[in-house]
């Protein structure tokens, strides 16, 4: 791999131990994946933030690097934490967990990383442009930025995204290159997609089938940002899809020639079967919405549906702090709270310790959450459309 003189110097330790190791990590990954050189990146999104995910080894690593003077070179946002950073006591998060979570947040902050604590940075103040090279982790955000925005990122892990943040570059391979962004499978959608959960179910089916390939969709007539967010998140959870194209909808689709590809047709019946196979539980203890984090539009919709109603079960709406501020200002949060629900920022059901809080059956409208909750949180799941879920608990 070609390195500039300045890069060689960093690698020989002239800029200190932290920079040497972080840069070596990028070089090594570049060598493994056949990169020709480093390229500058516009922003980073770092995963591995919840204490539940990274534990004490992660806390100690981050504090150590922060104390040794690691500083972000580019705009860097952070994945969700294991709790609402401000209202954790009210949510009955165990104090020991909270203490370690706050140590993690402080270490990141010391490195100049924005402690945004969201999986939807593009809705919260970090929006890349079409064609921009970025180094993001968080599989749903990777899918959204590659597919819907047309920015370019590989599926980074927590440490490699942190290294890109500190060095300002990433190795040039994979989805940074034109030739690797072409589709490998044609998906013909012959099904009615009304609700965001339908897109989650579709994504679940396709992700399972294509694994880490690039699907090209035909037959999706329209989809808003929230629906594309749900589709991509689900495909990245059941498979490892980092990029998809939709005919006449996503920005790079027009440059692709989806000819001679293996074809998969998804029908209404396939969607119905997915709703039923992902539903492993019957009676929910709690409803959790906002995986990926809710947009303001989604919170507005939930708030209108809950106007004047009373919930029989707890309901969380997860979002970023930034979107919650707007929801507070509009009174959406207050409406949801009046019905007995909560709008929770900085975290979500997958990375918070819900299994330790007495919940066994969680109802969701997200294909990604439905994929992860049984394994990560030992939950049985009720997976359904928003209206169906709200009818069951009001």
């Amino acid at each position, binding site marked *: 791999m070609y390195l500039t003189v300045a890069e060689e110097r960093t690698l020989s330790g002239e800029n200190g*131990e932290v920079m040497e*190791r972080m840069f*070596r*990590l990028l070089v*090594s*990954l570049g*060598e*493994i994946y056949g990169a020709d050189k480093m390229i500058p990146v516009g922003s980073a999104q770092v995963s*591995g933030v919840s204490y539940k*995910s*990274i*534990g*004490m*080894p*992660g806390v*100690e*690593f981050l504090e*150590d690097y922060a104390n040794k003077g690691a500083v972000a070179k580019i705009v860097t946002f952070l994945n969700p934490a294991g709790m609402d950073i401000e209202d954790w006591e009210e949510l009955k998060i165990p104090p020991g967990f909270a203490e370690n979570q706050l140590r993690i947040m402080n270490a990141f902050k010391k490195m100049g990383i924005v402690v945004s604590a969201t999986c939807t940075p593009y809705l919260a103040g970090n929006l890349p442009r079409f064609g921009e090279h970025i180094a993001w982790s968080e599989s749903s955000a990777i899918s959204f930025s590659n597919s819907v925005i047309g920015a370019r990122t590989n599926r980074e*892990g*927590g*440490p*490699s995204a942190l290294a890109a943040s500190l060095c300002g570059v990433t190795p040039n391979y994979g989805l940074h290159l034109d030739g690797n962004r072409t589709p490998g499978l044609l998906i013909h959608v012959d099904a009615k997609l009304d609700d965001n959960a339908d897109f989650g179910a579709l994504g679940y089916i396709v992700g399972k089938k294509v694994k880490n390939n690039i699907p090209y969709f035909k037959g999706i007539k329209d989809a808003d940002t929230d629906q594309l967010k749900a589709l991509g998140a689900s495909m990245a959870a059941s498979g490892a899809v980092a990029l998809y194209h939709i005919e006449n909808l996503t920005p790079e689709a027009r440059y692709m020639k989806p000819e001679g590809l293996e074809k998969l047709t998804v029908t209404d019946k396939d969607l119905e079967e997915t709703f039923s196979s992902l539903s492993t539980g019957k009676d929910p203890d709690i409803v959790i919405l906002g995986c990926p984090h809710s947009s303001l539009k989604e919170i507005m919709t939930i708030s209108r549906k809950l106007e004047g109603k009373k919930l029989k079960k707890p309901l969380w709406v997860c979002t970023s702090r930034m979107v919650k501020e707007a929801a507070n200002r509009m009174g959406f949060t207050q409406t949801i709270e009046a019905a007995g629900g909560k709008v929770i920022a900085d975290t979500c059901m997958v990375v918070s310790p819900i299994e330790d809080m007495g919940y066994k059956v969680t109802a969701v409208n997200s294909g990604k959450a439905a994929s992860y909750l049984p394994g990560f949180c030992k939950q049985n799941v009720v997976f359904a459309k928003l209206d169906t879920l709200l009818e069951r608990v009001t």
Partner: protein
Amino acid sequence: MEILKGRTISPGKVEGESIVSKEPIGFYGGVDAKTGLFIEKGHELEGKSIKGKILVFPCGKGSTVGSYVIYGLAKNNQAPLAIVNKETETIVATGAILAGIPCIDHIPVERISTGDRLIVDATSGTVSIVRSNS
């Protein structure tokens, strides 16, 4: 002396005694970062210490948090002297680089037995079997 040729993952040169696992290793839940002891139930290295040894295994497995465990081992002075793999995947590569532990892969690890005396030159990409235990 048999010399095996491999690929540099993390540079450095050390000499020491090997501890070999034929099974893959997942560091998160597999090794205790405080004691350097192998804690995974039923693993062939269960109960053994990897501190100060040259740890030889085919490849990593399991959680990505494993990278931070490898870092923690080094910080707590419980780390292996070096890591030698058949194929270093990103979890082990990341951990070894962050921790500054010499690491080399593309080595035919089946040629090495526990107790062999090795010189690992991860910078130039060689493992020399100085004295075979078998």
